[in-house]
Every structure is written in structure tokens, then in C-alpha cells.
């Protein structure tokens, strides 16, 4: 769940991170009033998308009239299909040095990591590639209390010393604590600016909260004005995604939904203990192009699995589907097999043609395999890895 910049900055402010003065404006008049109060301002579109500068969503204004005109323009610009909810009018400051700080999870290390650079304001991937000596990665424990010492090491690792080191340590330590306290998946400040008077301020911020943590942080979200039904995704849901969510919600038995649409031609019905992410990646690694990500598990009913399958098969871009899971225990192979075969047939397809591969080993697999045999569906058992199964599905698409 993404936060708008003004909300991320609200969180930073609550934790003592120094920020430029700013006002959120919803109209040209409010922006003019902010400029009258703050002086020359930078006006930034409040939109849940990157690429604001390139799209014309960031403008500068020296007077209230200029601020009003710029705000009128910014409010008209949709960025990556998203319209701004307002404009953040922020005092314009002269910056002499920019830094980058982010806290996120390192999936491979299974630990949070601080990424810090003294080359802020530019694409951090570019810094990592071309100037690795200007970037530090510092892992820390999510279980133990966070120590400022860790933040200091992260900043010092790129050669920052003196006043900047002390000021940046406080900011990075606050960022790490915000990350842990609010179950964020990303807490980023880019840039952190050193001003001509030596002060160090957080100039832009990006934060994402784990969607499952919303309930835990209801009080905070209420204070920030985030409605329960405001899903804060990077783009509006597609009709395909909406239909999948509806069918998942319509039947409480198991999960068969949580679908995200992609551009490819291989429909995926995947899941089980993190298997969905592994399988999605495996399809991509094998050179395949998924039409969707989705999750199936918790033993959905036959009708629910059938409805999801039918929906996926009916997408014009979907040439075949791959039904793959990790080894299942409570989800039953035979129930899913019945569902996907039924869904294929209801969508008007021959399951033996449409299902590129069925790889769900585990509970009731013999019964499931008997069903698949009957309908001529190509299946494999647990002796074939998830990666190999994904590769076989992709090979069939390319045949």
C-alpha cells in the first residue's frame, strides 16, 4: 500500500526528521496562499506514480500567481493513468549536496537492509551499477531494537564525516524505525539535501506499507486520512482483476483470486506456501510471458476454482494456462483438478489442449491424477521441480 509523498512526510515529521515547510493544496487558490506564506515554492503532484518530473508534475513558482497557474496545470496532468489528489507546495531551498537513503527487505538475506548513497537525486540502480563505491548496503535485524550505530555505519561506509554524518545518522535511524514500526516494505528518502546553510532536510519520500498490515495500523491510517476502501495500488485495477476479486469474495471456501494482470499469453493458476511467487519467477526465467499472477490455495471449492479458470481462459490473450503449485497439504489435488477442467470446458476449451501443464503434488494426488488422465491433461508429480514444470509449460507455448 503506497503513501502519497505528503503522507510519507507526515510520518517522517512525527519521527523528528527535518523537512522543508510545506502545505498540501487542492486548488490553485490554496497553492497561491501557500506561496504567499512560504515564498518561492516547488509544486509537486501528489500521485502514486514515479516519473513526476518528466511528466510535468513538478514545477517551480516564485510568486503566488505563478503557483496558482502551475497548480492548475499540474492538477490536469494524469501520470501513468493516475490523477493527482493535490499538489504539495514546498519552500524552495538551495541544495549543495544530495544523499539517498532507503530501507527495504533483502529477500535473499531474509533481513531488512539500509541502502545509503552520497549520490542522491538520481536513479539508485544507476549508482549501484556505475558508482558502487558511492553506495552502502547494511543489513540489520528486524527482531532486535534498532541502534543508531547501525545507521551511522551505513552512512560512514560511503565516506561521509563530520556534521553531515551526525545529521544523516539521525535521519537514517528514524527511517529504519519508521520502517519497522509501521510494517513498511519500503521507506525511502531521495533526495536528502544539504542546504547552503548546512542544514540537512528530507526533500522527497516514498513509502509502501505491507498490505496485510493495514489492520494493525488502522489508527495511523485514519489519522492520515486513508479510507478503508482506498487500495492505493500503483494503477487502477483492470476489469480482469476486478472480476477475479469478485469471484474470490463470492465464495469463502479457500482462495482463488488475488489476481494481477500482465501482458503475456500464459495464464497462471499458481500457489501454495509462497509457490505462486516462485512459479511466476520460474515462468519468467524460462522465457515465458505470464498473462497474470494469481493465488490459489486453502482448498477452494470446485466451483470457485472453475470460475477462476474460466475467467482466465476467456481472456483473449491467454493461449494456454499452467496450473502449478508447491506440494499441497490442505488444498486437495483432485478438487483443483476438477475445478480447472470444468473451468476450461465451460470456457469452451479442451482441457488437454488448453492446460499446458498441471503440477500439483500432495493431498489426494492419486485421485487428482485419475481425473487428469481421464481428460488427457499433461501432469507431473513432485519428482518434477516447480522450475522444470514452468519450463515445460513455456516450451509448449513456443512449440
Amino acid at each position, binding site marked *: 500500500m503506497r503513501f502519497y509523498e505528503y503522507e510519507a512526510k507526515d510520518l517522517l515529521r512525527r519521527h523528528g526528521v527535518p523537512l522543508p515547510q510545506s502545505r498540501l493544496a487542492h486548488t490553485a487558490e490554496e497553492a497561491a496562499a501557500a506561496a504567499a506564506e512560504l515564498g518561492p515554492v516547488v509544486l509537486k503532484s501528489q500521485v502514486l506514480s514515479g516519473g513526476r518530473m518528466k511528466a510535468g508534475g513538478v514545477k517551480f513558482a516564485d510568486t503566488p500567481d505563478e503557483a496558482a497557474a502551475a497548480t492548475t496545470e499540474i492538477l490536469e496532468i494524469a501520470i501513468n493513468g493516475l490523477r493527482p489528489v493535490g499538489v504539495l507546495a514546498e519552500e524552495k531551498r538551495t541544495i549543495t549536496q544530495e544523499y539517498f537513503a532507503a530501507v527495504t527487505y533483502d529477500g535473499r538475506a531474509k533481513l531488512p537492509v539500509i541502502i545509503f548513497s552520497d549520490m542522491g537525486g538520481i536513479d539508485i540502480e544507476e549508482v549501484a551499477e556505475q558508482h558502487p563505491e558511492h553506495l552502502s548496503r547494511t543489513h540489520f535485524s528486524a527482531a532486535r531494537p534498532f541502534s543508531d550505530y547501525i545507521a551511522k555505519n551505513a552512512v560512514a561506509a560511503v565516506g561521509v564525516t563530520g556534521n553531515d554524518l551526525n545529521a544523516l545518522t539521525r535521519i537514517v535511524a528514524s527511517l529504519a524505525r519508521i520502517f519497522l514500526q509501521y510494517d513498511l516494505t519500503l521507506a525511502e528518502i531521495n533526495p536528502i539535501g544539504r542546504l547552503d546553510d548546512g542544514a540537512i532536510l528530507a526533500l522527497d519520500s516514498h513509502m509502501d506499507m505491507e498490505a496485510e498490515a493495514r489492520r494493525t495500523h488502522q489508527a495511523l491510517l485514519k489519522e492520515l486520512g486513508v479510507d478503508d476502501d482506498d487500495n492505493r495500488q500503483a494503477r487502477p485495477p483492470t476489469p480482469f482483476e476486478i472480476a477475479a476479486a469478485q469471484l474470490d469474495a463470492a465464495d469463502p471456501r479457500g482462495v482463488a483470486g488475488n489476481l494481477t494482470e500482465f501482458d503475456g499469453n500464459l495464464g497462471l493458476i499458481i500457489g501454495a506456501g509462497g509457490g505462486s511467487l516462485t512459479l511466476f519467477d520460474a515462468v519468467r526465467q524460462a522465457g515465458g510471458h505470464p498473462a497474470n499472477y494469481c493465488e490459489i490455495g486453502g482448498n477452494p*471449492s*470446485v*466451483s470457485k476454482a472453475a470460475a477462476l479458470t474460466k475467467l482466465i481462459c476467456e481472456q483473449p490473450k491467454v493461449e494456454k494456462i499452467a496450473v502449478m503449485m508447491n506440494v499441497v497439504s490442505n488444498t*486437495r489435488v*483432485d*478438487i483443483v483438478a*476438477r475445478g480447472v*477442467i*470444468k473451468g476450461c*470446458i465451460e470456457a469452451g476449451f479442451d482441457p488437454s489442449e488448453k492446460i499446458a501443464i498441471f503440477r500439483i503434488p500432495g493431498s489426494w494426488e492419486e*485421485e487428482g491424477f*485419475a*481425473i487428469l488422465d*481421464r*481428460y488427457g491433461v499433461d501432469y507431473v508429480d513432485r519428482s518434477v521441480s516447480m522450475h522444470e514444470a514452468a519450463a515445460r509449460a513455456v516450451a509448449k507455448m513456443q512449440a
Partner: protein
Amino acid sequence: MAMFIRVDIDEAVQRDPALCRQLVEVCPVDIFALEESGRVTTVEPNLDECTLCALCWEAAPEGQVNVVRLYRE
């Protein structure tokens, strides 16, 4: 139309109203329903949801309720 499961109910079941009611009670996926006459019948749209849990055929005298897996025939 059910594709995977058929449930055959012997006429002897219909002569035992308590058993008819019990079948409706035990099935976890509502495959049995009572007609107004008290006869037990199957609910067509639910047949393929059968979990093969055995509760129905174990509730009835042997051979009076048969759950047929059509894909094995």
C-alpha cells in the same frame, strides 16, 4: 451438469425418514436435500463439490448410498 460425481440413492433409503434427514445433515457440501414429500434427493449443482468424505455412505446401510466417481468408470 455434474461432470465428476454421481450419487445413487437406493429406494430403501426413502422408506427411512430419519436416514433421509441424516444425509442432509452430514454432507458438508449440501449434496442432499429433502423434498416436500420427505424424500431425499441430490442437488445437481453441488454434486461436483463432493469431497468423498464417506459420511453419507457410512450413515446408510451398506450399498444404499453410492457415490460414483464418473472419471473412474
